[in-house]
């Protein structure tokens, strides 16, 4: 009797603190959904890719049917335009009824809006579907370019630096810096990386530095006087690699797509991308031959996430949250990860899904050149490292 009373107490203690907030939370969420009904949500997102635009159209259709929300994709060429627009609205005193309700954002653009107090929130972790997000396993969902997101933006997708190679020319998996270097030296003129300070080129420098450093701790602190000492393994590696690289390291592809082009015509055996499905997509669209393999470095793939945020003056915060919640639902995330539609890796923790929801992901076919989804992610070094690495690279290799 006493034992069962204790059990009951335990059960009550366990259930109530969890169940009650859960109950009110779902009540709150019902209120949000009700408020969102009939709202128009202006979603400012990069519109430069046909596949992505089609995906957003699909989401708009689903949201119209299910929530009576009108999702308008405002296609921008660079989200920095939207950031300046929001800043302009603030200086014009338009603190309500702003023209933007939801933005696709990360990195310095997020930092600009957050530090200026121009974001609505925090809201991201309160969404019902936020429970599925892989917060614990993927640090990049919480830290965006060394700035804590603090619930002001919701992770929408994750990117992990992936190396793709021509399978007929590369055997074995040179997935650590030493093996990669010896492959490069045995195959002169066949490896390169996009030229820093391009986005992908700088990412490659950071990836190699992290992979070459036994103690990664100092790289997550602001770079200081020890920059030269800490970065020296990278320069040693590059000095040797450049000698045997494409054009002897005197010319580099300008961007990721440029390098993909060089792989496609046969000038190179390698390319890089932040999207692990990039090569499979390119093969599907006949931009690459189909003998492509992929790897992520054993030390872990440099990763970052991209996010959704709501401007402080949005006219439809409820609608924006419902849209965001839908976009991280298992159904929407599975479609996004599907290479036939977009092929962008999910931010959800698939293990936390119930069997019905997991079925969405089990049904995905991944292309011939997509690596198995990575387990080790490396967050970006502290933001101060990027500029210093770029400058040092330019000083060293522009003669």
């Amino acid at each position: 009797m006493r034992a069962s009373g204790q059990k009951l107490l335990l059960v009550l203690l366990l259930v109530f603190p969890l169940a009650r907030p859960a109950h009110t939370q779902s009540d709150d969420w019902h209120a949000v959904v009700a408020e969102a009904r009939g709202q128009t949500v202006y979603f400012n997102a990069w519109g430069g890719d046909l596949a992505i635009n089609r995906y957003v159209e699909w989401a708009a259709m689903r949201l119209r049917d299910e929530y009576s929300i009108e999702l308008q994709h405002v296609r921008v060429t660079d989200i920095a335009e939207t950031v300046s627009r929001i800043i302009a609205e603030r200086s014009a005193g338009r603190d309500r009824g702003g023209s933007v309700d939801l933005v696709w954002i990360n990195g310095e653009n997020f930092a600009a809006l957050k530090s200026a107090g121009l974001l609505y929130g925090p809201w991201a972790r309160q969404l019902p579907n936020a429970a599925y997000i892989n917060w614990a396993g993927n640090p990049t969902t919480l830290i965006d370019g060394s700035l804590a997101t603090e619930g002001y933006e919701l992770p929408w997708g994750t990117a992990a630096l992936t190396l793709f190679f021509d399978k007929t020319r590369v055997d074995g998996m040179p997935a650590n810096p030493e093996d990669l270097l010896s492959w490069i030296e045995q195959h002169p003129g066949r490896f390169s990386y996009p030229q820093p300070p391009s986005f992908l080129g700088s990412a490659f420098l950071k990836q190699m530095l992290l992979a070459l450093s036994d103690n990664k701790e100092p790289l997550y602190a602001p770079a200081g006087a020890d920059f030269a000492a800490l970065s020296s393994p990278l320069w040693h590696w590059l000095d040797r690699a450049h000698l045997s690289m494409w054009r002897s390291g005197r010319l580099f592809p300008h961007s990721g797509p440029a390098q993909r082009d060089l792989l496609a015509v046969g000038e190179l055996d390698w390319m890089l991308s932040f999207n692990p499905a990039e090569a499979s997509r390119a093969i599907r669209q006949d931009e690459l031959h189909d003998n492509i393999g992929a790897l992520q470095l054993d030390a872990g793939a440099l990763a970052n996430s991209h996010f959704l945020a709501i401007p402080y003056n949005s006219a439809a915060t409820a609608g924006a949250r419902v849209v965001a919640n839908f976009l991280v639902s298992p159904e929407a995330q599975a479609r996004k990860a599907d290479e036939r539609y977009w092929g962008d890796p999910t931010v959800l923790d698939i293990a936390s899904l119930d069997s019905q929801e997991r079925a969405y992901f089990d049904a995905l076919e991944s292309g011939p050149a997509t690596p198995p989804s990575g387990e080790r992610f490396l967050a970006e070094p502290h933001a101060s490292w990027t500029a210093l690495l770029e400058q040092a690279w330019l000083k060293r290799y522009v003669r």
Partner: protein
Amino acid sequence: MAGLVAALWVGLDAPALSRILATPGIGLSVASSLWTGSIATACALLLAHLAIALAVSGNWQRRLNAMTLPLLAMPHLAIGIGLALVLAPSGVLLRVFSPWATGFELPPDWLIVNDPAGLSLLVGLVLKETGFLVMALGAALGQVPSARLQMQSATLGYGPLKSWLTTVAPALQQQIRLPLAAVFVFGISNVEMAIPLGPDLPPTFSVLLWRWFTDPDPTIHAQAYAGTLLLFVLGIAAIVAAAVLGRLVRRLLRISAESGTRRHTERPVRRLIGIVLAAGFTLGLLSIVAIGLRAFSGQWRFPTLLPDRSSLDVWTDVAALSASVAGTTLALAAATALLGVALVLPAAEGCKQSANTRRQVGAWLFLPLLLPQMTFLFGVQVLLIRLRIDGTFVAVLWSHLIFALPYLWGLLAPARAAIDPRFDQVAATLGASPGRRWLTVTAPLLARPTLLALALAASVSVALYLPTLFAGAGRIATAASEAAAAAGSGNLRLAAAHAILLAVIPLCIFAIAYIAGAMLFRQRRGVPR
């Protein structure tokens, strides 16, 4: 002028200048700008003189004109992108000979395109500017008694080539000083060819400036502003140096003339020059073909010459890409052409009698072409921002007009002046009003040059990249701006997809102008072409 003053004012920023000087590789950048610009101009000038000399003395000037026209119509950007696709180790040229002759199964690791010495940039510039200078020399032929000079010299026993170079060429040279200076300044300051072909680590100074201008970080823009000032100084210095050099060359020519040496036969020299010209022409054609091949090929592995398959996906992709910019490009071209002609025709009417006024107006209109485009356009941009019309269609149209007007003037003003005033007088004695006289007498006589002028202005507008970028504040997308952006990020396949429009539109426009001209005058004889 306002543009220049504004540019100088904002450009005077000492910290930014010192930051420019601290840029890694800046010395090499400036040097490669100067080197490629001056060598290319010198080679193009020499080739153009030789080509005209050979063509006129060999009676194939018409064929020469027909050869240079497609090259002239083709924008620098398109030729640049095309040449990159031809000359690269994985390019069309080596594919033709691989693997059967070269044994290459993989493209060799040769640093040909984007080479540090700028040789491929040189080839591109020479190819394009030779065409331009041939046209300028051809136009100047009318002002020089070339046949008489040539004959006098021939009776003294000189071969046609030497007599041309020592008698006619110096006189022609005097006539083309302005276009030559424009070519020189363009050679030093261009980005259209230097982006796809030029050296890369470091790039030419103008490409460096262009990268700063298009950088999203506004603190870097100050550097670009100050850089335009430096570019301006480089341009002036180069022109002064060229003038001095020109004098030297004239002296050398005189020494050669006074030496009295006569060659037995000029045939080997003639043949060599003929081969060089033919090779250049072939290279130009190949680069146009390469653009088409690359744009419509999916995967295209070395050494296959023709893409194995061209999927429907690729075609629809290219069509979708082109459709989105074709509208803006064509609208700008049409507006520039119509407005330009509407402005120039009345002005030409006004100074049909005074050759002096015509020359002065021409010189003023020509001024923007003598400045590095970035310097001038930066000033224009400052002005547009003041007027709060930057980034609008009207602003871009205005900037295009600035660059189209000198060509329109050069074509229409002499054409108007050449019309015999007695036609008009006869019509007046028959009692026709001035308006009617213009419509029934002058207009038909001007129709053909006007058609040509419309085509020329439209193709100038299609080719303009930097004016579109600066006046459009990056918001107005044309085929040129998209192709340059793609080439700048090294994505040659995307660049080729946009360059197709760049190549096709001017060719179509010129073809239409010629056909329309021929149709209009089927029944008339003696109408000036």
